């Protein structure tokens, strides 16, 4: 079951090829602006390096956001296009789940991306043999997310949102994990598809759209 995984929801893009718990090739792309130009050639290069071609692939695993509006759509379009053209199976997991899966922490992990203009995207997971979602991806101001966690000191935080909010997280007692673990990695997506394929399987890739995260109702209100 040879699969390609990709995530471009944050400034660091990630591509990997693997099968049955084995990573054959992977790479990181560090320039957000050129995700659209860089990803496809990188997929070609990785396949070449492995002596494989696109026709050898059986599935695509995509990080479905949340994250950069443009970036999430780049990975989604590529994944849908490849599945359509080659009749491949599509799997999608939250890019926040990919961060948690790659964080290497045994306790609860709060994965966070910077959503700009005062907000973060956040979700909570516990990772072991598989992955358990403790709270679903949401958008909101960092202090609200921390408040809703109850005891932030029980959690580890990863992702560029955790980096941006590092001071607030630390003063709330939380531990911010090493920046190396902040990327939603394609390697982690391959792992998720291996341990929990049913959660990620997309029945109809043509109709699939990446997730859109709304604010919790407590944060609504137009004010003024």
């Amino acid at each position, binding site marked *: 079951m040879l699969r390609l995984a990709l995530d471009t929801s944050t400034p660091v893009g990630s591509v990997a090829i693997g099968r049955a718990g084995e990573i054959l090739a992977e790479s990181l792309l560090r320039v957000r602006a050129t995700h659209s130009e860089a990803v496809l050639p990188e997929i070609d290069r990785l396949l070449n390096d492995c002596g494989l071609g696109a026709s050898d692939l059986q599935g695509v695993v995509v990080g479905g956001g949340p994250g950069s509006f443009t970036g999430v759509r780049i990975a989604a379009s590529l994944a849908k296009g490849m599945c359509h053209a080659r009749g491949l199976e599509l799997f999608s997991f939250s890019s926040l789940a990919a961060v948690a899966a790659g964080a290497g922490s045994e306790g609860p992990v709060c994965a966070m991306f910077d959503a700009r203009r005062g907000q973060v995207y956040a979700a909570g997971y516990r990772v072991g043999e598989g992955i358990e979602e403790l709270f679903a991806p949401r958008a909101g101001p960092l202090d609200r997310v921390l408040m809703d966690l109850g005891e932030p000191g029980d959690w580890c935080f990863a992702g560029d949102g955790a980096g941006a909010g590092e001071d607030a997280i630390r003063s709330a007692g939380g531990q911010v994990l090493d920046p190396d673990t902040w990327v939603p990695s394609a390697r982690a997506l391959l792992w998720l598809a291996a341990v929990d394929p049913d959660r990620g399987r997309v029945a109809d890739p043509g109709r699939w759209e990446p997730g859109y995260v709304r604010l919790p109702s407590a944060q609504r209100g137009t*004010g003024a």
Partner: protein
Amino acid sequence: MSELDVGPFALTEAELARYGQDMGRVALEGGVFVCLYGDLGAGKSTLARAACRGAGVTGPIPSPTFTLVNQYEGRGGATVQHADLYRIETVEGLPDMGWEGLVQSEDMVLVEWADRAEGFLPEDRWDIRLDFLADTTRRRVVLRARGRVPRLPEPRVAAEDPSC
């Protein structure tokens, strides 16, 4: 970081336009997300156009009612995004118009009918609410700066009208 309403002010159309220019100038510099609320005819478009002028936009500023978002070049080459959510009936329509991209941009963003995006508005923003008054030559204006944003300019009028 106080988040209190400022106003109300009772502004004539000329005062509203002059205020819009002041507001637009600061909004461009800070890349502020500006939400405009108010019924049809309350003055949102007048205020938005004036804000675009204040941000240095030259040339025509057509209504974005049908295009949903218009993009202009402001002072110093900075981008000004002008959105109108009137035709967005439910929040389900937001993804297709590129809402998330507007929120994530560092541009100055003007959003008319911002209440249609309730629940999806960014934390850092200016809220400007416009209402009708018994004196039909004036509009009631209430301002609020939320989150980490530059100070929201106030209208250059003599006094607030506490009765309005």
